């Protein structure tokens, strides 16, 4: 079980939700905003091509990263960009957690979260 108070999306917190490779590529994309896959690969020289490719596919599929197909150059290629910044990804993860809680414990959870928040404030 993840300790809720430790969820923050700084370097360590990120790996609670993403694998180390996913976190590393996300950090890269947050910094550079737009990258091609050879550029990403260059920054992850220690990983295999297959590993980087698999990670990029996963990130794109989960919606944390978007990619467009660029055909303007001599070759077809993907251009990757992050969907939302660090903060937005945080919100998205929180929403997912709440969805999970509701699925598991029912809507009463959401009420109790609301009550607890009021008490806390």
């Amino acid at each position, binding site marked *: 079980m993840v300790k809720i108070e430790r969820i923050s999306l700084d370097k360590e917190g990120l790996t609670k939700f993403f694998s180390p490779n996913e976190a590393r590529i996300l950090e890269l994309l947050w910094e550079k905003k737009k990258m091609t896959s*050879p550029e990403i690969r260059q920054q992850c020289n220690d990983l295999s*091509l297959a590993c980087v*490719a698999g990670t*990029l596919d996963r990130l794109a599929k989960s919606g944390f990263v978007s990619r467009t*197909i660029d*055909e303007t150059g001599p070759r*077809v*290629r*993907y251009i990757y960009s992050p969907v939302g910044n660090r903060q937005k990804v945080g919100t998205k993860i929180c929403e997912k957690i709440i969805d999970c809680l509701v699925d598991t414990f029912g809507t009463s959870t959401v009420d109790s979260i609301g009550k607890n928040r009021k008490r806390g404030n």
Partner: protein
Amino acid sequence: MIGVECFLSCIVESGLVYPLMGLITITAILLFMYIFKRNYESLLASQSTLTVIISVNLFSMNCDMFTWVWIYLGIILIGTLLMGLVKHYLELQLDRNIIRSPPYLSEIKKKFKVDISVLDTQKIKAFTYKNRIYLSVGLLERLEKDEIMAVVAHEVYHLNHSPNKLLSSLLALTSLTFRRFNDEHYADQYAVKTAGIHNLINALKKLEIRDYKKRAMKLSA
């Protein structure tokens, strides 16, 4: 020992000794042909006759060795189910992930007279399925046109010369040889002939194919 005696008496009683001996001879001849010629036709044919031999043996049994029939059927059933699952998964993926193929592929398509589809994935993929070649964006990204040509040539060889994968897997299973025809080297040779050895080796290297050094060595030898 009782098992063997029972087994022999089963066959003798069933009156299938001569047909079986004939089939065994044919299988042996086909296997020799395969060893010398290395063509898939003789491998598939020998696996087919072997399948017949196994089936005749198993189904003429009426002794306590009948459990072997169930083991054999079990192996084939599980194998076929697994293959079906793989095929289903592959088809699902193909349906979902095809994108418009870039214009510069049309020259290659014309040269080899093949259909090429582009798969929307960063992974390195190149394969044939139902008379069509599939290449992934991840692969196209990394290669020059001449290198793509080498990859396509390799796949074109499979398209024209390789046995049906499903059929050869099934026969490998039913004949209990568990051996599938491997003609990767011939496909590589064809690619070298049509696109040049450096283009193929460069492609294998850029795509970080696991055994690329071994394949390159075999080609330059």
